């Protein structure tokens, strides 16, 4: 079908039809996670490589488990413990890996567009697991999948995305994915972290978080990406928390049944108050489970079936 043998680099390029295919496939595959023996033979003999130039807990483990549950073999390479340390270029590393018979590469890199670059070098499919400040497509898909666990549909849903919009690839993937499926997306953050061009993506931008959250069905809190920020984009974490941290006051503007999401890892007490992160309205841990199902679906759709 449509994703077969292709790369998954961004939700911007993914059609709504393909997104729905991934979501419905993930819906079927999620059952495997509840089995006592979590293994199906579908991708037997396929080799998947995770190539991570940035630290990761969730995404990497999630991809690896997804591959293992589908019986694919995985190898994982971290920049910190590989020949990257000796100065090998990305292109050389990738070409060498491909020559060892790998069927698919999953890459995270700190440079935006690096996955597009990789996909032009390699004949095998490439999945973007986060490239710089650009996109993180599987995160966007798993977020939409999680929203659908709680809401009847995406069309017409009001989603507020809160925080470090400028540096967040999660925000961009969610904006592309959600608007494509008909949601009304509002974003808010400190003006230094809220690029003025963001409205060109079909969202509304607010400097005051209350306005963005007003009547929202979903409140999506982003991590403050301190590692990507040059200094003095905001005065202090404490002040950020005062104005933009999600607490009960701020949340009271959302709908009664609004769900709270966060891509992790959380800076508790900065962008999200601890009691809200642990409240029953928080679906943050569901996102993690669903991540495995969605990634299984993506791997099946790209690798399953005839070459």
């Amino acid at each position, binding site marked *: 079908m449509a994703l*077969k043998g292709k790369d998954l680099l961004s939700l911007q390029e993914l059609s709504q039809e393909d997104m729905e295919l991934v979501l419905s496939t993930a819906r*079927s595959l999620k059952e495997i996670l509840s089995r006592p023996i979590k293994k199906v033979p*579908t991708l037997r003999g396929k080799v998947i490589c995770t190539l991570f130039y940035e630290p990761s807990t969730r995404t990497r483990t999630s991809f690896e488990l997804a591959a293992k549950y589908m019986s694919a073999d995985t190898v994982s390479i971290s920049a910190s413990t590989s020949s990257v340390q000796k100065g090998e270029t990305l292109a050389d590393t990738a070409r060498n890996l491909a020559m060892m018979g790998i069927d698919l590469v999953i890459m995270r890199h700190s440079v935006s567009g690096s996955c597009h670059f990789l996909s032009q070098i*390699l*004949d095998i499919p490439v999945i973007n697991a986060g490239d710089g400040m650009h996109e993180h497509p599987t995160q966007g898909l798993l977020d939409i999948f999680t929203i659908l666990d709680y809401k009847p549909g995406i069309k017409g849903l009001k989603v507020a995305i809160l925080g470090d919009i400028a540096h967040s690839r999660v925000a961009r993937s969610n904006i592309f994915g959600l608007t494509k499926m008909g949601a009304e997306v509002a974003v808010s953050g400190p003006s230094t972290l809220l690029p003025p061009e963001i409205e060109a993506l079909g969202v509304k931008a607010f400097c005051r978080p209350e306005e963005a959250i007003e009547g929202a069905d979903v409140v999506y809190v982003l991590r403050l990406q301190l590692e990507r920020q040059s200094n003095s984009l905001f005065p202090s974490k404490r002040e950020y928390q005062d104005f933009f941290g999600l607490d009960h006051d701020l949340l009271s503007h959302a709908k009664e049944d609004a769900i709270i999401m966060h891509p992790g890892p959380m800076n508790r007490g900065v962008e999200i108050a601890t009691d809200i992160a642990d409240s029953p309205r928080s679906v943050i841990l569901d996102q993690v489970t669903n991540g495995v199902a969605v990634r299984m679906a993506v791997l099946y759709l790209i690798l*399953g*079936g*005839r*070459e």
Partner: protein
Amino acid sequence: MKEKASPLIWPGEAKRRRIQYEKKSPLKEHWWGFSFFSCLEQNDAKANFMKGIENMHFIDKAEIMDEDGIRRALVRIAHEIVERNKGLDDVVLVGIRRRGVPLANRLAEILKDSENVEVPVGELDITLYRDDLTLKFEQPRVGRTYLPFDVTGKKVVLVDDVLYTGRTIRAALDAIMDHGRPQSIQLAVLIDRGHREIPIRADYVGKNVPTSRREEVHVRLSEIDGIDQVTISEEVKDD
């Protein structure tokens, strides 16, 4: 620079043809599955194939079973299940997607009427276990597996519409065993058309239908197709 597998039939095309076929006549004929020609890679081969498919289709030769026939066969199978298992203790029905599922539900209904026992019914999707996943051209959609019981210790009766090569059942056996260790697994099919490729047989058969490989057996069920009917059709070429 980069060459990735380009689809032999682009996604819209399959749909267009399906619509075309449905327009032509909903029950009398249908276009042959495209996967059959997946071995053809070249563009000229593709053109020939496209030409060929326009001139080839199946025509229903005979109706083997009607609504009453299907009902009677299922009633008999239901009774045989009770007889063989000396009651319905630990018996569960598992329908193989798609048409095995409504059949399993109907069997459960008959068992409830005659034995006054509610037999649990599950649904099994075997896509992930197919042995032809790497051979088929079209990537099959993964359906939902729903087993609302632990299969361990149960007498599982697999239900499917047509038994042909046996490969679907092989996949279903693997799928079931991944969920636990049943006490036994039995197989009920509405039609057994022969031509087994692996050593598998059915315990309960609605009707044995000798066929040639050129023929196709179509089970249509009202839950999915709006009509209860089993027909046999043969490939013909238009002139």
